[in-house]
């Protein structure tokens, strides 16, 4: 079973604050994703990566940066957090990279921006 670990589990910050969400997968998957989950919107793709040093833009990238430092680690950065970024964030990984790929999700980080 693929293991994807997110930290922190919960985070509260203020408007304009700087936040980093961390994700680590220990199954040597090449593909990693950041999603946000909001009532009325489901899950929306923010950024994704094909491997260390690679970054791709998702469907809702505004206000977010991401960095893939190693095959295992994928970070989501909010440099000037806004209340609209209050959400539940999920990281996922996949080893297949094809249309039939299975995504393995972490348990999520709940971010509140005051």
């Amino acid at each position, binding site marked *: 079973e693929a293991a*994807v670990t997110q930290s922190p589990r919960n985070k509260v910050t203020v408007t304009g604050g700087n936040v980093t969400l961390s994700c680590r997968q220990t199954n040597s998957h090449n593909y990693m994703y950041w999603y946000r989950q909001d009532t009325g919107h489901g899950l929306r793709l923010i950024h*994704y990566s094909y491997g260390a040093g690679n970054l791709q833009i998702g469907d809702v990238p505004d206000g977010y940066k991401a960095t893939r430092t190693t095959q295992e680690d994928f970070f989501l950065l909010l440099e000037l957090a806004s209340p609209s970024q209050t959400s539940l964030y*999920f990281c996922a990984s996949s080893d297949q990279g094809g249309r039939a790929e*299975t995504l393995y999700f972490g348990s999520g980080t709940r971010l509140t921006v005051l």
Partner: protein
Amino acid sequence: AQSVTQPDARVTVSEGASLQLRCKYSYFGTPYLFWYVQYPRQGLQLLLKYYPGDPVVQGVNGFEAEFSKSNSSFHLRKASVHWSDWAVYFCAVSNNYAQGLTFGLGTRVSVFP
């Protein structure tokens, strides 16, 4: 662009009763389709996935889904619901190569004795 519609935001069912969750997709070409489940305070887990082939797909925990190209649907079914099936269920369609999935809004299932 591809999209997924789950018309039922909430479904309430008695334990032991059957369950059907609806999913309609929009995709140009042959879709690859998925059902994921999210238990309380957890991430999403795969229930089953559809590749082109047999339209009925078996998943974990007694779930199955049926693909219909003519109806653009991929409905999820379970013959007898257990209290542990209390969760949110997401239908999803695969994007192009390694671009993740497009999810529906989810259906929240509540199970009562």
